[in-house]
């Protein structure tokens, strides 16, 4: 009987929701399942996207750009030496409630302190919950950078840094700096279910979490008390659809209104569909081919330049990126400030390549390996196909390239250890700062296990890199970065292949959606007609 009553209740609840669903629910065809709903411990874009509707940070990126604007902090002061940043928090910001938790207070400084200390302080009761990996927090150098975080009063928090760091504010707009409810955390700790904090997102965001059915759907509903005004949608649904072709079919049929990562091969058809807008934006990323300069024959600059002339980049762009990419000549994408457009890319010219190889004494060719990563990325949609094309190009110069690949974790580890001669990888920017890209070629990262996959350490390049990081003046920094791009182009430790163009098909009834250069999917300002 009890079951029946519950069934009945469920049915009624459902009917209510369904009629509301007809009102204004946006369905977003997402590409995969989130690991959990805590942006502090996630690293994948898929998981971060899934939690983002429920949360805010102190500052945020203005939608569609990488500009940092106020969010939970209304304003901030920076001390003259750049080591103290004081945030003035917004008042009257409400947290979501759940079936078991109703917040008794508004957002305040305690929430900020808790959110950072969980990741920072090993003695925080939450530090070890859910595996305790705070990859972004650590990777962005926070443990070294932070000296203290102090509560000045309920609505003022002061961050003290060990050194001035220009990109710090941008870092705080990243997902790892999400603000959690300290009150909810305490309640879960008391209930003995601390891991709930990472499974049920309770935040201050524009949408509150309803339910997650593993591998199929995530549901949010609009949060009427959102500090920036209730969103115009009533509900938000993530329809998890792993196959890109299936996502496109669903969008075509109106089963969803926005889709992630269309198949490049479907772009033609998508562009022709009268019900669909194909939004696009240059991605903040780079796909490249690294030459290991510690290994023969790539220790010879002439061989590296021969590669630049031998590999037909246009074919790669045409047959692999299928229009969803732009040819790259520098490490940073053109959307980042300090991009040096004066650099002229090496043209495809097998004869020149042959001449260079002859100069290097390798006219008979040589044998090498060519690594391709086993994962798909916007900056490299199909590394296997790129490898097949490069292999055929090199075969014309009597170079025998053996294709090598490993499981993803293993692949990256071995590349970082420098086991490869030639290998593909890429990078996606986190915060729009050039340093976030250029450190990939630093001497510090050239050590075994470091992220400099060319193992290239050039003093002229590295000195400028370090100098630019300590400066605040954007013009001075720009000049240094521009020079670095020339050095890199001349010595050619890696071959920049492409920057992706991010395409996002949305149905015509969607308005207010902006493609994020950071690869995010944000729905706060979206409307449905």
């Amino acid at each position, binding site marked *: 009987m009890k079951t029946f009553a519950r*069934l009945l209740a*469920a*049915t009624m*609840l*459902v*009917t209510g*929701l*369904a009629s509301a*669903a*007809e009102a204004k629910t946006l*369905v977003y065809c997402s590409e995969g399942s989130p*690991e*959990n709903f805590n942006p502090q411990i996630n*690293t*994948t874009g898929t998981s971060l996207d899934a939690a983002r509707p429920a949360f805010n940070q102190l500052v945020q990126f203005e939608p569609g750009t990488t500009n940092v604007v106020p969010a939970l902090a209304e304003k901030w002061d920076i001390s003259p030496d750049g080591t103290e940043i004081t945030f003035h928090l917004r008042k009257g910001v409400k947290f979501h409630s759940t079936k078991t938790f109703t917040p008794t207070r508004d957002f305040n400084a305690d929430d900020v302190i808790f959110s950072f200390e969980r990741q920072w302080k090993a003695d925080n009761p939450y530090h*070890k919950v*859910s*595996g*305790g*990996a705070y*990859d972004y927090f*650590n*990777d962005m150098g926070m443990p070294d950078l932070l000296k203290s975080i102090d509560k000045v009063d309920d609505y003022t928090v002061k961050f003290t840094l060990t050194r001035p760091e220009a990109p710090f504010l941008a870092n705080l707009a990243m997902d790892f700096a999400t603000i959690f409810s300290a009150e909810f955390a305490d309640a879960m700790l008391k209930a003995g279910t601390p*891991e709930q904090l*990472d*499974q049920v997102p309770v935040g201050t965001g524009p949408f509150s979490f309803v*339910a997650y*059915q*593993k*591998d*199929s*759907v995530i*549901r949010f509903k609009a949060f009427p008390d959102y500090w920036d005004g209730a969103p115009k949608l009533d509900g938000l*649904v993530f*329809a*998890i*659809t*792993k*196959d890109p*072709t*299936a996502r496109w*079919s*669903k969008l075509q*049929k109106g*089963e*969803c209104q926005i889709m992630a990562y269309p198949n490049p091969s479907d772009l033609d058809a998508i562009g022709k569909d009268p019900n669909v807008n194909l939004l696009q934006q240059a991605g903040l990323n780079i796909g490249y081919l690294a030459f290991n300069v510690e290994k023969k024959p790539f220790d010879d600059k002439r061989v590296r330049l021969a590669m630049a002339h031998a590999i037909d980049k246009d074919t790669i762009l045409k047959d692999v990126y299928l229009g969803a990419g732009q040819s790259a000549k520098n490490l940073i994408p053109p959307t980042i400030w300090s991009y040096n457009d004066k650099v002229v890319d090496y043209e495809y010219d097998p004869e020149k390549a042959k001449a260079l190889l002859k100069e290097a004494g390798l006219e008979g060719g040589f044998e090498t390996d060519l690594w391709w990563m086993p994962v798909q990325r916007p900056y490299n949609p199909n590394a296997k196909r790129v490898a097949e094309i490069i292999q055929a190009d090199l075969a014309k110069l009597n170079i025998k390239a053996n294709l090598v690949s*490993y*499981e*993803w*974790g*293993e692949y*990256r*580890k071995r590349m*970082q250890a420098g086991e490869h001669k030639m290998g593909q*990888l*890429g*990078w*996606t920017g986190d915060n729009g700062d050039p340093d976030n890209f250029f450190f990939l070629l630093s001497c510090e990262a050239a050590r075994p*296990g470091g*992220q400099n996959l060319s193992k290239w350490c050039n003093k002229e390049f590295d000195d400028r890199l370090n100098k630019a990081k300590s400066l605040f003046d954007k013009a001075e920094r720009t000049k240094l970065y521009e020079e670095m791009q020339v050095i890199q182009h001349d010595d050619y430790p890696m071959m920049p292949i492409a920057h992706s163009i991010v395409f996002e098909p949305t149905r015509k009834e969607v308005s207010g959606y902006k493609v994020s250069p950071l690869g995010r999917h944000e729905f706060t300002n979206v409307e449905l007609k």
Partner: protein
Amino acid sequence: MLGFIVRRVLLVIPTFIAIAFLTFVAIRLVPGDPIEVRTGERGISPERLAQFRHELGLDQPVWKQFLDYLWQLAHGNFGTSTSTHAPVLTEFLTLFPATLELAICAMLFATILGIPAGVIAATRRGSFVDYTLMGAALTGFSMPIFWWGLLLVLFFSVNLGWTPVSGRIDLLYYFEPVTGFMLIDSWLSGEEGAFSSAVSHLILPTIVLGTIPLATIARMTRSAMLEILGEDYVRTARAKGLSPFRVVGLHALRNALIPVVTVIGLQVGALMAGAVLTEYIFSWPGIGSWLIESINRRDYPVLQGGILLVSGIVILINILVDLLYGVLNPRIRHAR
């Protein structure tokens, strides 16, 4: 009978431990580890890697890890996923109904079509109908089902637009899962159109997963029927002037079904293997895609627990088939 059941079940335990041991060791031989694979292009510093390996107990000797694991298993604890931090058993139980629903539908599809097809082919041996049916069956039996699935999607979903491309139900419908079986849940929800939506999502996956069992059952039924139609008692029944329908339906079919039941039971393992591919093609949120993903994520607890649970089910069903075989065939009694 009871003694037989007890013996069979007791025999399962060492097999089960062996599977646990082999998967446990095997998985640890797989290159890569759950922490390395999680970090993206950035990678992870050796110190932090060591710290996490320590926290997950991966720095212990393998034998010790295994004993710990067995100890946990004995207490019904299958561990916690390293990527989602949710208990493996919970994840299994939320996803298994999806696979089960698909498998049951596929099996029903195969049986309902396969047995009549086999019977018809056998009674009209050598006719055009026989050749057509058996030709079709052999083609189905030879089908690369991942390709078959893509073809069906291309034709019915993309070109004709008759069936949805993937998923279990339209997202318009939302109800709390009661049984986990979408057909039942959607019916219980009472929402208009929910049930038919669930049905339309099931059609193509059912066909794809059911194709090989269908072909196998049809072929098996035919040959079993042929054998029995040639037996003396059937000839006698015919000679007595019983109607062909009675002969085929009552006498022959009942006996012919015995080997068919065995075949159906033996298909369960194949069905799980097929489910891996079918779920992969249709983004079906079931056990198959869960396990594939766990390999990609090097999620040791999920992979171990998943394989253990799946093979446990396969073993269990094989025992049930043995028992059913005994019930159906009075000549075989499990007494000794």
